[in-house]
C-alpha cells in the first residue's frame, strides 16, 4: 500500500510542478473553422521544414477564437487567432481590457460561399434578391409592407425557379459562414428593395434585423458545423439545397453542383476576381507581445505569407483558398516583415 501511496503523491506533485514551470516552445493558434484547413496546412509544412515544433491549432470558431485570444498576454494564452471575418470593435476593446494592446491583422485570401444541390437535380440560377425572398424571416409583400415569409415553393417567388418546396441546409447561427452568408447573400438581396434600403439610414438596427434574420419555419434547416454532413444530405435528397464553403464544393464536384448566383457560377477564377458576389476575406490576428517570447512566430508568419503557400499556385490553393491579388499580398507581407524588424 505504501508504495502505491508514494507513487500517487509523486504523480500529483510532478503534475503541479510541471504546470507551474515549463515555458512554452510551441505556437498555439485558435479560431475559425473556415481558416483551420489552411492554417493547419501551413503549420504542418512549417513543422516539417524548420526545427520548430508543429503549432497546435484549435478550431473554435471566429468568435470563440477571439475570446481565447483576448484573454490576456502570457504563455497560457493563444498567440494567433484565425477569423473568417474582421475583428469587431467590441473584441478589440475586450483585448485591450486584458492587456492585449497591439495586434496585427493579416488577410489570408478569400473564400466563396456557395449554394449547391445534388447533381441528380437541375442546376439552379438564382439572384441574391430571390435568395433573400426565399430565406428571410420577413419579406416585403406586393405593397412593400413587411410580412412573415409566405413563400413555400421556389416557383412562388419567380416562375423561372423550380416547382418544389424550399429546403435549404446551412450552418447554424454560431458559424462565421452563416454570418457571411447573411451579410453577402441575404443583405445583398435585401438592399435591392428601395424601402428597406431607406431603412438603413433611418433605423439601422431594424435594417439589420430585417436583412439578417433567417426564417425559422423549417425551410432553412440548421445542419450543424459539419459540411460533409450537408453534402451527404444533398445526395440523399435532390430537391434540397445546401450552403457551405467553396472548398467543399471543389472537393465534391462529382456529386454536387453550385448554383449560379446573379448569373455567376462559383468558380475559382470568378471568386478570385470578385465577380462572384458571395465571397468574403479570411484573416488571422497575431499578438505582437508574444513575438520573441514564443519561438517561431515570425518564421510561421513568413511561411504563411510565402508565395509558395498563399500565392496563385501555392499549396493553399489546393486546399481551396482563393488567393489575393499580387499587390494585396505584397502589402500584408510587408506588414509581417515589419513586425520582425521592430522586435
Amino acid at each position, binding site marked *: 500500500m505504501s508504495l*502505491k501511496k508514494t*507513487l*500517487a503523491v509523486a*504523480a500529483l506533485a510532478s*503534475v*503541479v510542478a*510541471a*504546470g*507551474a514551470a*515549463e515555458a512554452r516552445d*510551441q505556437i*498555439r493558434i485558435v479560431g475559425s*473553422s473556415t481558416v*483551420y*484547413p489552411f*492554417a*493547419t*496546412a501551413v*503549420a*504542418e509544412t512549417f*513543422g*516539417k*521544414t524548420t526545427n520548430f*515544433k*508543429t503549432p*497546435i*491549432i*484549435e*478550431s473554435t470558431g471566429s468568435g470563440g477564437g477571439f475570446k481565447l485570444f483576448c484573454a490576456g498576454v502570457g504563455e*497560457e494564452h493563444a498567440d494567433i487567432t484565425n477569423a473568417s471575418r474582421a475583428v469587431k470593435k467590441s473584441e478589440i476593446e475586450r483585448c485591450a481590457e486584458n492587456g492585449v494592446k497591439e495586434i496585427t491583422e493579416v488577410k489570408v485570401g478569400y473564400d466563396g460561399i456557395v449554394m449547391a444541390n445534388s*447533381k441528380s437535380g437541375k442546376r439552379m440560377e438564382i439572384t441574391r434578391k430571390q435568395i433573400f425572398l426565399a430565406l428571410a424571416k420577413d419579406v416585403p409583400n406586393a405593397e412593400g409592407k413587411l410580412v412573415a415569409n409566405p413563400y413555400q415553393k421556389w416557383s412562388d417567388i419567380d416562375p423561372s425557379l423550380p416547382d418544389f418546396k424550399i429546403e435549404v441546409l446551412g450552418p447554424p447561427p454560431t458559424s462565421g459562414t452563416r454570418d457571411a452568408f447573411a451579410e453577402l447573400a441575404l443583405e445583398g438581396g435585401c438592399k435591392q428593395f428601395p424601402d428597406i434600403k431607406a431603412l438603413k439610414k433611418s433605423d439601422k438596427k431594424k435594417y439589420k434585423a430585417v436583412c439578417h434574420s433567417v426564417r425559422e419555419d423549417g425551410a432553412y434547416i440548421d445542419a450543424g*458545423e*459539419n*459540411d*460533409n454532413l450537408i453534402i451527404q444530405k444533398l445526395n440523399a435528397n435532390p430537391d434540397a439545397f445546401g450552403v457551405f*464553403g467553396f*472548398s*467543399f464544393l*471543389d*472537393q*465534391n*464536384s*462529382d456529386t454536387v453542383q453550385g448554383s449560379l448566383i446573379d448569373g455567376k457560377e462559383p468558380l475559382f477564377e470568378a471568386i478570385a476576381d470578385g465577380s462572384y458576389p458571395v465571397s468574403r476575406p479570411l484573416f488571422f490576428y497575431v499578438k505582437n507581445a508574444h513575438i520573441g517570447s514564443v519561438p517561431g512566430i515570425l518564421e510561421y508568419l513568413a511561411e504563411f505569407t510565402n508565395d509558395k503557400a498563399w500565392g496563385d*499556385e501555392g*499549396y493553399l490553393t*489546393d*486546399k*481551396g483558398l482563393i488567393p489575393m491579388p499580387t499587390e494585396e499580398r505584397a502589402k500584408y507581407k510587408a506588414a509581417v516583415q515589419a513586425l520582425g524588424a521592430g522586435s
Partner: protein
Amino acid sequence: MTELKESMQKAHARLKKRRAAEKRFKMFGVGALAFAFLCVLMLFTSIISNGYTGFKQSYIQLDVVMDETVVDPDGSRDPAKMMFSNYNALVKTALKTKFPDVTNRRDKRKLYGLISSSAGYDLRDMVLDDPSIIGTTQTVWVMASDEVDMLIKGVFDRTQPESTRPITNDEIAWVETLEKENRVEKRFNTNFFTAGDSREPEQAGIQGALVGSALTMLVTLALSFPLGVMAAIYLEEFAPKNKFTYLVEVNINNLAAVPSIVFGLLGLAIFLNLFGMPRSAPVAGGMVLALMTLPTIIIAARAALKSIPPSIMEAAIGVGASKMQAVFHHQLPLALPGILTGTIIGMAQALGETAPLLMIGMVAFIADVPSTPFDPATVLPVQVYLWADSPERAFVEKTSAAIMVLLGFLITMNALAVLLRKKLERRW
C-alpha cells in the same frame, strides 16, 4: 358433470389465452433483438465498407536521380545543411523525365500533384541515412497523392464526364501509363499506424491519437482506480450509516449521470485556470476523465464488495483479524474481479469521450506524436471528429478506418470485462 365440463372448457380457454400472451411476449423479445442486431449490422457494414480501403495506400514507383547539385550543392555532406535541401525538385525532375511531353505550366503542376508531398521527406531521410547514394539513380516507391489514391481505389469514377470528376483526363492517362508499366501498387498502409495527424489525407495517421489516448487513459486509471476502490471500501465497510453518508451516496449516484461536458467545464475552471495545467495535455484530460469515471468505479466496487458473503468477514474477525485485515486480506481479493469489470467498463466509456476534452483544448490539430502526459495531444474519438469535418474526400475512408480501430479497442476492453467475470467470479 356439465358444471365440471364447463369449468374445464373455461380453464382451457384461459390457458390458451395465457399461452398466446407468452408467445406474443417472446415474439416481441425476438423482434427487439432482431431490430437491434440489424442496426448494429448496418452500422458495421457502413463503417467497414467505407473504411477497409483506408488500410491500403497506393504507391508509385519512380526513378529518381539523386542530383548532387540539388541535394548537397557545396559538397560538404553536412547533414544539418542537407536537411533543408529541395528534395521535391528531385521528385519533379523524375516525373518530368517520365512524361517529357508535359510542357505547359498548368499541366506540370497537375503532374507534380500525382505524388504526395511526403515524397521529398522520404528522399531526405534516404539521403541522410546513406549519403553514398548521392549522384546515383534510385528506384523508389513513393506515396501517391490522395486524389490519385482515390482514383486507383475506384472512389472516383473514371467513366464520368471530365467536368463532373474531381480528377482530369490527363491525370487519369498518366496514372494508366504508370499502371501499365507496373509502377503502381497498393500496399498495407503502415503509415496510418506510425504517423501523426496531417492535412494531407495520405500522410495522416493515428499514432498521435493512439499514444494520446493511451497516456490519457493511464492518467485516468492511475487516479480513478485507487481513489474509487478506497472510497468504495470506506463507504461500504467503515463509514457510519448516517445522514451525511447517505447524502454522499446520493451524490455519487447523481454524478454518474451528469453530462460529460460539465466535467469538461469543471476541468477548464479548476485544472487549467486555477492550477495552471498545460492546455491540450493528456494529464489534464486524464484528470477530467478520472472525475467522470470515478462514480462508475465506486458504484461497481461497492456492488462487488456487497456480493461477498458476510460469513467470510465474520470468520476472519472470529479468528482475531482486525476489520481492516479482514477487508484487505479476504473481502477485497474476492471482490476484485467485479471491481475490475466495473473499472474496465468505466475506462471504455472514458476512451470514447470527446465532449469534456473540447473545453480543455484537446480537440486540435496536433501533428507531433506526444511522448509524455504533458505534451499536447488528441485522443482517438477526437481524431475521428476532426477527420469527419475535413473537406478532402480521402478523409472519409480514414475516418471510418479510425473508427474501426477505436471500435476494436472498445470491443477488446468489453470482451476482457466479460471474460474476467466469467473466469474469476465465484458463485456462493
